[in-house]
């Protein structure tokens, strides 16, 4: 199996605290993966490293067919290379409309002058409508994003990710604070997305992870504790000790 993202031997410490300790991780081009682990296991730091927000002290992060090192790229270059990230708290642009939010995320040239002379076109409009349909926000397009409910903001953010057409989606606790129906919808969106791209979901909620029905990586103290199907890892004695058995 070819790999899309390969993280190997990565370590990073903050003021002597080792947030990530010799972590290695691989994911293929069309794969769903859930990352679980207790607080402080390094899940968010892992995402920070992949997206370029944090530079690791050592190790390699290799991306794509051409084996580019992500460590040399800036955040915006990594995003343009095809890594999309959804934050834990929904972060959408609250003073702008849903349409403006999606339009900003839509895959297009990103240079200041390209954007300044950007003309709205039928193709872009169709892509935008399709994404709005997929996340169930077609009716909400003209609304100001700040007026949306918590769940709708989460979907809008996922929609913005999809609009970027990334090869890898990093999703941080997508189901936090959602009602059961909203969770179900979120699961559907993610499973659909994983058919054509790699999706990494960080989640606390076991029930949600079970519904994703995918390979699970358990992080603990900054490195991989176990990997495999959910049933496999939940029966692992180490995992039970550090995480589930508390």
């Amino acid at each position: 199996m070819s790999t899309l993202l390969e993280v190997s031997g990565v370590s990073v410490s903050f003021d002597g605290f080792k947030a990530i300790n010799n972590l290695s991780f691989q994911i293929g081009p069309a794969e769903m993966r859930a990352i679980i682990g207790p607080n402080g296991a390094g899940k968010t730091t892992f995402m920070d490293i992949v997206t370029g927000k944090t530079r690791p002290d050592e190790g390699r992060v290799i991306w794509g067919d051409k084996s580019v090192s992500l460590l040399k790229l800036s955040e915006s270059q990594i995003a343009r290379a095809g890594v999309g990230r959804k934050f834990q708290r929904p972060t959408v642009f609250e003073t702008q409309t849903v349409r403006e939010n999606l339009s900003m995320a839509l895959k297009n040239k990103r240079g200041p002058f390209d954007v300044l002379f950007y003309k709205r076109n039928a193709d872009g409009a169709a892509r935008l409508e399709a994404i709005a349909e997929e996340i169930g926000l077609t009716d909400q397009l003209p609304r100001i994003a700040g007026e949306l409910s918590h769940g709708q903001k989460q979907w809008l953010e996922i929609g913005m990710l999809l609009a970027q057409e990334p090869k890898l989606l990093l999703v941080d606790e997508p189901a936090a604070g959602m009602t059961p129906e909203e969770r179900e919808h979120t699961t559907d969106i993610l499973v659909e997305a994983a058919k054509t791209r790699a999706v990494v979901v960080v989640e606390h909620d076991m029930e949600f992870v079970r519904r994703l029905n995918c390979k699970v990586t358990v992080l603990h103290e900054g490195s991989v504790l176990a990997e495999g199907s959910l049933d496999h890892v939940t029966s692992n004695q180490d995992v039970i000790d550090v995480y589930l058995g508390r």
Partner: protein
Amino acid sequence: MQKSFLARNPSVLIFIGCLAAFTLAVTLLSEATGATFISTSFVKTLGKTLCLCLIAIAMDLVWGYCGILSLGHFAFFGLGGYMIGMWLMYERTKTIVTNSLENATLPPTADEVRDAIGTQIFGVVGGAEIPPIWLFADSLFAQLALVVLVPGLLALVFGWLAFRSRVTGVYLSILTQAMTLALSLYLFQNDSGLRGNNGLSGLQNIPGLSHISQATLSIWFFWASAVALALGYLLAVFVTNGKFGSVIRGIRDDEARVRFLGYNVEGYKLVVFTGTAVIAAIAGALYYPQAGIINPAEIAPIASIYLAVWVAIGGRGRIYGAVIGAAFVSLLSSWFTGGGAPDVPLGFYTIKWTDWWLVLLGLSFVAVTLFAPQGIGGLIDKLVRKS
């Protein structure tokens, strides 16, 4: 389905209509057309006010839309004024010198004329040599290019250094203050080549147009300022209206998020910062021929802070708000400080507005921040929505 630019932005037509009506009214009532309702000096005040409205638009773009609280844009305004001032002063002095040497027994050589110009201009700072930076001062075209190039280049270099190091928020504001302070202190020096604290003067006299009265010239500059303001307004609406506007408002609200969408935030900031610096410089180049004099005090840090106050009172994030704020506050300021407002005798103490105007301005700034954070523009928005 795609509505035209004007249909999407009805405020543009309203604004340009108001500006045109105002320009026409001032022209008809001014001394240039034989009426006596508006004095030439007041036409100049109004023309200068239009230039201040233009720099306020620039400030609104960079602060209100892109979230960069620059407290240094008056430096670019002043530099624009200096660049055009060099040509005005050089050419006018040249005319005077040539006229006075006309009756000499031998016709003056080019070097003699040049030396005489040098003595005339730089005598006040104890020099006679024309400094190298005046190399192009005899060419209107070159100095007009420098109006754009010098401030633009300064903004580009300053912005590149600051944004690349991810200096943001109040730290960036302090840095821009330092820039304008350093520039003004440098210009205060006699050997800066721009006549130290004397600055450049006599700028109201346009070389080659000495046969035209100040009344007519003032109206010409008033028209030029109005046209520049209208173009600036159109440009600002165009820039903020489309996707570019979306991105820079995104940068204002959540810079990191924009970065993770794949936009090069630093590049956008640099474009906005430099572009608005150029707008400010053009406004300055139109302002100072109407003011007649420019000196380093004009680019003291306080000037740029006033600019932020105008935009805050007018309502940032709204282009017409910036225009209203600049016009309202600067006209009110010249009324109060020019002795237009009657003193208030309290018996034991007399409130002289020339002294108390700043207190009033400060209080109204606090009041706007507390009670109408969206400024005057925000109040107008509320009224429009209600009706």
